[in-house]
């Protein structure tokens, strides 16, 4: 593979300036402001993504504790550890937080951290919007847990079926808190999706044509497109639910012609793709890890890209398989069974390609790679148990039983959390500049791997034994006590595994050995720069000569100079072939995104108590948007080169 042919008139002699002096000039331009104000006004993608990842893990921890409490309650029949009201709040906020506040935000944040570096640019396309997205997400998450800790936690289930979630059967503010949390997190998710798509389309390093984009980046792009289509549906649905509750609309009230099943269609049209929105980024993470640790590029690049896209498309055709127990025609049922089966083909292809990569590589089984193998071992159980639910007759027996939590946790823990933890061990050195302990990493891996199986395999069996899900207790004569106790013991193993992981992180942060720029001999551009990455990522924008950017060029990398170093400027390239096209000035740190998020927050939260709050918040938001659109102070010597179209 050779370099993209570049226009001759742009080639120049080597820049006389040393890289060190370039660093010295870029650093003051790109760094965050000092102190708390600097923290609040940051528009740097890594600062924001990192705090977003930490926020997501904080919510993960709370939701995990909730899960542990539920397992304590279910450890034995007719346990009196907690009553139904507490239990229902716990399982609702556990599911809602894991899906909306942990899984989607964390994969999007990993994307917002690494996609810009992997494609060789300095920041995401819309830095202020990115900050705004984080703040709305944070407000939404705090709202949900503020509700929980004041005993106003949603208790209608994370799927909020009407009429149970409607005004008639859930009085009070609990469901309203849930609905507004959804709105916040959907705004954040849509914003992050647009960031990823546009950054990848327009800011790739020269030479990184679409057929050279790393699989990790492809996965994030596919995920982002899915977010754009799916999230508006749940946002609209939750807005309708809130309106039914707050201003007496009749969307879901059957007495006035509304429909309870309308909610289910809108919700699952979002929530089924949601699982793949979470899962596809994990495929990207696995691809990155497999390549680096097998010491070869992932086998079947084109097949994998096509598979990712196919999974993305097909996932929108499956939602009805969550509704097989509602009135449906046989034809409809068969269609959705077939569609559900079809998605197993591209998913299978991805797994076969990774096995082929390992097979022909010379792999090292460091902790990240262990997590990949663990992912295959667990996720395949999740996928195969999914077949039971795609098959209408078997689904009628198993849906809404404990088989479901068993299945979904194999899918989400195996298919998403394991790759994420692999990614954590893989990229920790890049983010912090320090290595994690291999020994502790392996200990926590095995605890988690065994823990997942001990916790969730009994749940698959409990479902077959007839135990419904979402029950706060069960009677002794059911005979479900043994399996439940086993499952609870497994939850304990998971908790210990997670504690070891946290300890490993803390110890490595404090005293891990220095990582250097590229501890693993990585394939993609993030390993070309120092660890942790500088605020502007690259002193010069690198030029890419192959699919494996760093393996195609082992020594020096070709690079682009000429971006201004006295203001924040990024290089834009053409969408397909990534040829240098234009320069684009980026905004300096600003408080406006936070203010805008607060304005939205005032509107959505006060609206719970008085519909006029929406109007007030709307006006505040418009003011914030006006401030947003107002031009920042222009730099001295600003002279724009304008390309006037013919």
């Amino acid at each position, binding site marked *: 593979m050779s370099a993209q042919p570049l226009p001759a008139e742009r080639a120049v002699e080597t820049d006389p300036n040393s890289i060190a002096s370039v660093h010295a000039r870029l650093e003051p331009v790109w760094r965050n402001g000092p102190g708390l104000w600097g923290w609040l006004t940051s528009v740097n993608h890594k600062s924001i993504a990192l705090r977003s990842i930490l926020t997501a893990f904080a919510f993960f921890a709370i939701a995990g504790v909730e899960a542990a409490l539920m397992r304590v309650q279910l450890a034995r029949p007719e346990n009196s550890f907690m009553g139904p009201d507490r239990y229902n709040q716990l399982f609702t906020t556990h599911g809602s937080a894991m899906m909306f506040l942990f899984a989607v935000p964390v994969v999007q944040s990993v994307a917002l951290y690494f996609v810009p570096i992997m494609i060789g640019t300095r920041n995401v396309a819309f830095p202020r919007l990115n900050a705004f997205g984080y703040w709305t997400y944070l407000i939404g998450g705090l709202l949900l847990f503020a509700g929980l800790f004041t005993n106003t936690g949603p208790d209608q289930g994370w799927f909020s079926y009407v009429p149970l979630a409607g005004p008639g059967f859930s009085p009070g503010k609990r469901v309203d808190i849930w609905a507004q949390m959804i709105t916040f997190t959907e705004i954040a998710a849509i914003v992050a999706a647009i960031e990823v798509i546009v950054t990848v389309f327009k800011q790739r390093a020269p030479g990184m044509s679409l057929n050279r984009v790393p699989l990790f980046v492809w996965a994030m792009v596919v995920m982002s497109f899915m977010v754009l289509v799916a999230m508006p549906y749940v946002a609209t649905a939750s807005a309708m639910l809130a309106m039914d509750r707050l201003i007496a609309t009749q969307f879901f009230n059957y007495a006035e012609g509304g429909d309870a099943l309308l909610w289910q269609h809108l919700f699952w049209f979002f929530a089924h793709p949601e699982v793949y929105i979470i899962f596809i980024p994990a495929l990207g993470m696995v691809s990155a890890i497999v390549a680096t640790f097998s010491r070869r590029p992932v086998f079947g690049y084109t097949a994998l890209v096509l598979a990712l896209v196919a999974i993305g498309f097909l996932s929108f055709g499956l939602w009805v398989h969550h509704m097989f*127990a*509602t*009135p449906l025609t046989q034809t409809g049922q068969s269609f959705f069974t077939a569609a559900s089966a079809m998605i197993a083909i591209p998913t299978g292809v991805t*797994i*076969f390609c990774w096995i*082929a990569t390992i097979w*022909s590589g010379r792999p090292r089984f460091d902790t990240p790679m262990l997590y990949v193998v663990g992912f295959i071992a667990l996720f395949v159980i999740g996928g195969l148990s999914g077949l039971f639910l795609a098959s209408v007759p078997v689904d009628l027996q198993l849906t809404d039983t404990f088989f479901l939590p068993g299945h979904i946790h194999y899918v989400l823990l195996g298919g998403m959390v394991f790759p994420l933890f692999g990614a954590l061990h893989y990229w920790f050195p890049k983010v912090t500049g320090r290595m994690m302990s291999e020994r502790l990493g392996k200990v926590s891996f095995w605890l988690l791997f065994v823990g997942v199986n001990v916790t969730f395999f009994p749940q698959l069996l409990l479902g*077959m034994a*007839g135990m*419904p899900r979402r029950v706060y207790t069960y009677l002794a004569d059911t005979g479900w006590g043994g399996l439940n106790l086993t499952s609870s013991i497994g939850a304990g193993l998971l908790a210990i595994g997670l504690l070891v992981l946290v300890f490993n992180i803390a110890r490595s942060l404090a005293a891990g050995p220095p990582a250097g720029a590229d501890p693993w001999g990585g394939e993609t551009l993030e390993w070309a720069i120092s660890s942790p990455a500088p605020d502007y990522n690259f002193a010069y924008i690198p030029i890419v000569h192959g699919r494996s950017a760093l393996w195609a060029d082992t020594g020096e990398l070709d690079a682009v100079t000429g971006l201004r170093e006295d203001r924040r400027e990024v290089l834009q390239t053409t969408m397909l072939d990534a040829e240098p096209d234009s320069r684009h000035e980026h905004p300096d740190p600003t408080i406006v995104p936070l203010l805008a998020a607060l304005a939205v927050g005032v509107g959505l939260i006060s609206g719970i108590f008085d519909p006029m709050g929406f109007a007030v918040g709307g006006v505040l938001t418009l003011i914030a948007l006006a401030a947003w659109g107002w031009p920042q102070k222009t730099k001295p010597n600003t002279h724009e080169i304008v390309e006037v179209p013919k």
Partner: protein
Amino acid sequence: MTWAGSIFDTAGPPAERIARLAWFLIIVSAVTYLLVLVATGMAMRRARARRARGELADARPETGKRLTRNVAIAAIATTLLLLVFVTATALTNKAIAWPLNAQQPLTIEVTGNQWWWQFRYRDSVPSNWLTTSNELHIPVGRPVRVILLSNDVIHSFWIPELHGKQDVIPGHRNTTWIQADRPGAWKARCAEFCGLQHAKMAFDVVAESPAQFDRWYESQLASAQPPTDSSAKHGHDVFMQRTCIMCHAISGTEAGSSVGPELTHIASRPSIAAGTLPNTRENLGRWILNPQLIKPGVRMPPNALPPAEMNALLDYLETLK
């Protein structure tokens, strides 16, 4: 396999067919899973050996061709397996549909309430319509058409031994059918989250011979006998004068409310409080005294009756056979 209460403890045609399909899926999944594990394990071993020999990754074009072929074979095998899966599903789905040639079907309207079940047996003679609560009797060998209605939120009707579940949706009329091929007594539980006491919303299913069923039906159709002994008479008065009458019905008396389960033959039921407690005098007393302790959130309020009244009331209820 008789794993009591499980989906494999089948007692009727649809459940039987589904269990067979489930076994098929279990075997197919187990084999597939093993194949994936073996492939992964072999890949790891082979690659480890290469590392041990100090060789680089195998990037030869002929290896690439071989890998492409193997991945393609695996993908095609997956596709074929899925075709089998879809076909088996479609065939089973067809087989468990309501039999169009059903002989003398029985029709039962099921109404879900937070958190108890009401059953109404339809009959061509309106005076033979029968309403019961939390207890479903069916004759062995006769198909039963089940019409699912809800008074409040979504519930789900599920007797694992007989058939998969169908949701009970307000504003929609869903249907399903069941048929018991052998006598038995099972517990059925609500399978859609329906609020605070979703966990304690069960009912008893009794499948019995047609003769026994007919006898049961006759006995249930009968109005409650007026109490004869004095304590039961007192209990009757307690029922009618205290809050009981506001929610419950006992046919043959002035109690006719349908807010809560009807109690005409409560003494003949195996359990109380929607399958929560065995129907004993002690449990019944505990339940009436404070249902909130047993089923927090249930619509029934506590009844702090003086012991004498409580005893009389229990005496009366025990006559309602």
